[in-house]
């Protein structure tokens, strides 16, 4: 078993195309997941039926393997005629759309829990100070609680994001050729598992470590106020 640089070079275009697919799947999921997670996290902080529903949502989508969720969206929903025979089909016939839906649901489940944790960690006194200064609850939420929560959860968000980058590879189950799938295709043709997978691993490594660096910089910027003097 040895690393074959020539094969690695030859398969580079395929792997880069796979990387592009990975991003095409990932980026909308990150944005949509975040947007979806916010109202769920807020509902979770309340009491009563809304909170129960939010808790159920989080439990369900964190619990179901994303592979199954993707299958369900991609192959399961078309069995229903309201999906199959209406305008919805124009969306659901597209594998990217299905990937976005499936992964967004999973991601939003995790994110809702992370955001809830961050919001809960904002000291009550600070919220009261904002209230006493005359800010409306909405202003307090967007201008104070969320910015502070973002600072608390940076690390948890980083972990979720890194795991998300890698678990995007589940989309190969619904025909998308992401980076892992691209490496697997090379592997399928050459029976050399080592070279394409190590090359893919190297690309993942670059992506992830760029993100980690980004987070370190963000942490330094956002948490300036904690810097020891």
């Amino acid at each position, binding site marked *: 078993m040895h690393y074959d640089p020539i094969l690695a070079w030859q398969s580079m275009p395929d792997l880069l195309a796979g990387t592009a697919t990975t991003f095409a799947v990932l980026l909308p999921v990150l944005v949509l997941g975040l947007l979806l997670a916010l109202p769920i996290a807020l509902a979770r902080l309340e009491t009563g039926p809304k909170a129960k529903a939010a808790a159920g949502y989080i439990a369900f989508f964190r619990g179901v393997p994303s592979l199954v969720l993707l299958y369900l969206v991609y192959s399961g929903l078309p069995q229903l005629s309201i999906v199959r025979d209406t305008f919805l089909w124009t969306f659901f016939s597209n594998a990217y759309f299905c990937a976005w839906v499936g992964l967004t649901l999973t991601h939003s489940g995790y994110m809702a829990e992370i955001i809830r944790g961050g919001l809960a960690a904002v000291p009550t006194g600070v919220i*009261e*100070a904002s209230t006493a*200064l*005359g800010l409306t609850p909405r202003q307090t939420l967007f201008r*104070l609680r969320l910015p502070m929560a973002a600072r608390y959860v940076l690390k948890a968000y980083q972990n979720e994001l890194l795991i998300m980058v890698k678990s995007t590879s589940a989309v190969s189950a619904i025909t998308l050729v992401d980076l892992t799938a691209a490496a697997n295709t090379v592997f399928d043709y050459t029976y050399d598992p080592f070279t394409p997978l190590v090359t893919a691993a190297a690309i993942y490594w670059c992506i992830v470590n760029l993100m980690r660096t980004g987070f370190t910089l963000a942490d330094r910027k*956002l*948490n300036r106020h904690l810097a020891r003097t």
Partner: protein
Amino acid sequence: MNAIVQIPSTADAGRRAAGLQPAISVNRLNKFYGSFHALRDIDFQVAQGEIVVLCGPSGSGKSSLIRCINHLERHDSGSIHVNGMELTRKASDVARVRRQLGMVFQSFNLFPHMTVLDNCTFALRRALRMPAAQAEALAREYLAKVNVANQADKYPAGLSGGQQQRVAIARALCLKPSIMLFDEPTSALDPESVGSVLRIMEELAATGITMVCVTHEMGFARRVAHRCVFMENGAIVEDAHSAEFFRNPRSDRLKGFLAQVL
């Protein structure tokens, strides 16, 4: 340094002389936490420009009263009027009343991720929609008044407790409230910082602003307050001119309390 107060207060807080509207008027106020009766039939008036000190043992309801007045807690019955406006649960009423009130907390509650200057301009810009430049000028003016102008670009964590509390006072003053509420503003401070905050409060008192202050700094109460109110178990036990309050405590409980804290 002490202000010449326009309206001498009467110890009989229930029925105030007519003419000038009271700054704060609390009537038969009751507050429950679940089944716990935290405030019992409170009647409490503060005249315009009056400085009132609230004291009493821990858990007696001092904070609860202050917090009801600016609606950080909802009251369950009775009424609260601030400068003649009734405080109801309507968001618009709450906002109108809060515009009259500045609040300073025991634990400062500065926004840790904003610089001192941003702490002060935050409400000006977001709540009053003041242009940034104007807000900054105003904030710097008040920061200078409390002697922390040179700390404007630091983060709160970089300041001593006394400096933080003075920033908190400046932050509240920026909004030009007609009434300031203080909830144990010095009890989280080290002994030397206490002095600097009390001095700022004295200067503030001299400007004729109305102040309600929960504190155990009896020296401050004696020197600055017009009236002292002693609470216990959610009720007002004594309410008297401050000279009278210290010289002639009527109830045994207040006598005991003063013996402890003096």
